[in-house]
């Protein structure tokens, strides 16, 4: 039996009584996935990422959402937010907090939305992430049975962040989940949405998530993807964004966890005046492998994009950055900037980066830069000459390096959490507070 067949076998066993429109989608996804199969390194899009660990895995589907409450409190972000929790892809009503939603905001699990309001869901779901995008979106389309539907009525400004926590358990048998997230922001609506991946330290599951974000004119969406899953977890994600006139989409893709993580981020800027900002950070160690593929499609004139991705790599980890800016013919007066900087802390770490520009209009200002190197020895020296020992000097400079991205993060709790994790995972483990104190002391002196 081929790997795709083995995966799809679980589908037929599970879904017998789907409504017909859902069944039809599943069939389309399954057929496409079977035709494409898992990607190999011969596919340009997967040149540096080997997914055999996923293809050769045998993943069951979770049936309950039980999760240790003590651990839950430890893992979750301590923020005042509307919260929706999935455990191994299964909705947990117990851990979620969906009460008190303001008027104009709808936040519900996909299963419920499909059962009660299938027409509205069916219309938008899959509009941006078709089954042809990649074998993984096809696989997701075939399996998706849980997820999150966020809908904002025009003019709604959500007072608190919408917090989606996806937990992965250390199961006896690894499981797979195919969550689906759909965010529809009406005209001039504003919201902050956090997708947080976390779980038990020994979890070794396969998460295959697809997120679709639609921004009507003037909408503003801040989208966070905070990946803190176990270092044994496998994770494939694709985020698809459609931007209307004068809308603004800010993406924060922060990756600390996972054994194998692949994220595709695709934005179609379809109308004038729209802006997209991509902020990315990955910190990897051990044998972690993180692959970020980003694409900005400037399909309309007078649109703007700015991308800044930073990577810190230690041990035998591997990072991949593939950023592409596409400017359609006649999409004039575009400004598109892209930057990728990587810091290698070990001789055995590897980074493969490819910043691409594909441009079919002439009145554009586009640039990209990619740098890879080590910490500036002169800066290390400057700090040492102020009486700071070398490990501390290097830690401070590494933190400053990630700081350029973290400064853009508007949710303070997330910025702090990431910085603390970076400090604590450096070769000589540091306490963030100590580092901050030292930095402040230097500034005062």
């Amino acid at each position: 039996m081929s790997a795709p067949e083995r995966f799809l076998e679980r589908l037929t066993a599970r879904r017998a009584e789907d409504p017909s429109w859902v069944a039809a989608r599943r069939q389309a996804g399954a057929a496409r996935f079977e035709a494409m199969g898992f990607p190999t390194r011969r596919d340009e899009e997967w040149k540096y990422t080997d997914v055999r660990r996923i293809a050769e895995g045998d993943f069951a589907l979770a049936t309950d959402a039980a999760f240790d409450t003590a651990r839950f409190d430890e893992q979750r972000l301590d923020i005042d937010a509307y919260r929706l929790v999935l455990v191994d892809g299964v909705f947990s009503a117990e851990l979620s907090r969906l009460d008190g939603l303001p008027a104009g905001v709808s936040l519900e699990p996909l299963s419920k939305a499909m059962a009660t309001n299938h027409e509205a869901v069916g219309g938008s779901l899959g509009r941006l992430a078709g089954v042809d995008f990649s074998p993984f979106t096809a696989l997701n389309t075939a399996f998706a049975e849980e997820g999150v539907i966020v809908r904002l009525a025009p003019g709604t400004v959500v007072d608190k962040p919408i917090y989606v926590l996806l937990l992965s358990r250390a199961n006896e048998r690894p499981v797979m989940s195919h969550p689906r997230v759909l965010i529809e922001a009406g005209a001039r609506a504003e919201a902050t949405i956090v997708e947080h991946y976390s779980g038990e330290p020994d979890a070794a599951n396969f998460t295959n998530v697809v997120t679709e974000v639609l921004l009507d004119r003037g909408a503003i969406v801040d989208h966070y993807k905070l990946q803190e899953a176990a270092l044994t977890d496998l994770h494939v994600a694709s985020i698809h964004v459609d931007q209307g006139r004068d809308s603004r989409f800010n993406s924060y893709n922060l990756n600390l966890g996972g054994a194998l993580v692949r994220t595709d981020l695709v934005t179609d800027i379809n109308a004038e005046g729209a802006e997209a900002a991509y902020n990315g950070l990955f910190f990897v160690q051990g044998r972690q492998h993180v692959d970020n593929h980003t694409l900005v499609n400037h399909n309309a004139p007078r649109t703007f994009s700015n991308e800044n991705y930073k990577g810190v790599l230690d041990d035998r980890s591997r990072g991949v950055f593939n950023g592409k800016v596409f400017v359609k013919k006649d999409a004039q007066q575009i400004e598109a900037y892209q930057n990728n900087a990587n810091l290698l802390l070990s001789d055995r770490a590897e980074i493969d980066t490819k910043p691409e520009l594909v441009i079919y209009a002439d009145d554009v200002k586009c640039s990209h830069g990619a740098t890879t190197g080590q910490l500036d020895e002169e800066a290390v020296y400057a700090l040492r000459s102020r009486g700071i020992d070398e490990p501390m000097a290097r830690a401070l400079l590494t933190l400053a390096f990630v700081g350029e991205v973290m400064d853009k993060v508007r949710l303070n709790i997330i910025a702090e959490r990431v910085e603390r994790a970076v400090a604590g995972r450096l070769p000589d483990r540091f306490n963030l507070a100590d580092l901050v104190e030292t930095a402040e002391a230097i500034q005062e002196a």
Partner: protein
Amino acid sequence: MASEEMEQLVRREYKQGFVTDIESDTVPPGLDESTIAFISQKKEEPQWMLDWRLEAYHQWLKMTPPSWAHLEYPPIDYQAISYFSAPKKPEDRPQSLDEVDPKLLETYEKLGIPLHERAALAGVAVDAVFDSVSVTTTFKEKLHEAGVIFCSISEAIREYPELVRQYLGTVVPQADNYFAALNSAVFTDGSFVYVPEGVKCPMELSTYFRINAANTGQFERTLIICDKQAQVSYLEGCTAPMRDENQLHAAVVELVALEDAYIKYSTVQNWYPGDEEGKGGIYNFVTKRGDCRGDRSRISWTQVETGSAITWKYPSCMLRGKESIGEFYSVAVTNGRQQADTGTKMIHIGENTRSTIVAKGIAAGRSDQAYRGLVKIGPRAKGARNYTQCDSLLIGDQCGAHTFPYQEIGNSTATVEHEATTSKIADDQLFYCRARGIDEEDAVSMIVNGFCKDVFQELPMEFAVEAEALLNVTLEGSVG
């Protein structure tokens, strides 16, 4: 600049019609073992060479043409190509410059090609118009004195088989890629250079080559070896439009630099780009690679690519020796319906190796152009350094410019920097020039030349002057 004006400027025609004369002594189209045996026999090659070719051919049969480049062209029928044609007989060629297309001569005039070379370049039966023998002889004597071997690859296979056998295919193996395999099987001509230890080649291998290059084959094979502490500067191609009946060109160039050796390889490529609809232009699929085998060796590629309907070309450096240096300076200009997918590969293997990449792309008309490059830093390349700058200039709103730089970095002591920009000629730059009484075409030409300056200054002097003129001619009707 007003858009209609720009449009008008972009419309230009190639300065030269195509000459299709009747060939003699040509094998019928098609490729099989007997074709290869025929070529080998015609060239009076030893058995090992024939075996080598056949080995390449068998590899090629198993391969498929690459499809990853940002290029569009119909599939090539390799059985429709004739793989061997003897040089034209003198009576089939134009007997004097009077018979040559006046437009071609006009281009030579604009480019400032010396009179005696024009005839050779236009394919005029050379002996009838001027005595190239004496020039050639002087060069040969000088090179011989220095101990430099410079001859056709066919001659080298016969005269210096040990050298050829030792180095041929060691930089670009037979099965390196589809076109290199094809070339290995059927190459008919090309150059061979060997510069012995400690010798600095007394002249740039250019003028000599230009005269003798009038009948280069479509499957050229060049092998240049620079022994320890030796130096050579080699100029390929020429600024004059090249006439050629063969649509497919698949050349292979191999450079070997031993300890402290320095090879500078400059190319100016101006093959026929096709008509306004892009029909009939040359397909240029070239594999060029230099091997910095020795410590402190240095290989420098400079290219000015203005011709061909399709260019597929990535001159590369394997930086194996410690502290070896690789350089790539490129200007690519496309107009009309031309497509170019070009760039370089710098493979850092040895410690403290350095590389510099400066690529300038200018796209006009309805052309499409891509820079595709790879910088790879191996785990043992401690202290390796790369700097890459690639800029694209778009002229008109019907063209495309793309950048695909791959970086694979496996060493924390490496420093790799890449910068790229894409823009058009700024209105304020044009306005500044116009305000000083410089007309629009001259202003654009001046700005474009300034854009390319970093590369032009790497060209040998006489080439640099011609290259500037060439740029103007290529973009004529578009900018210059």
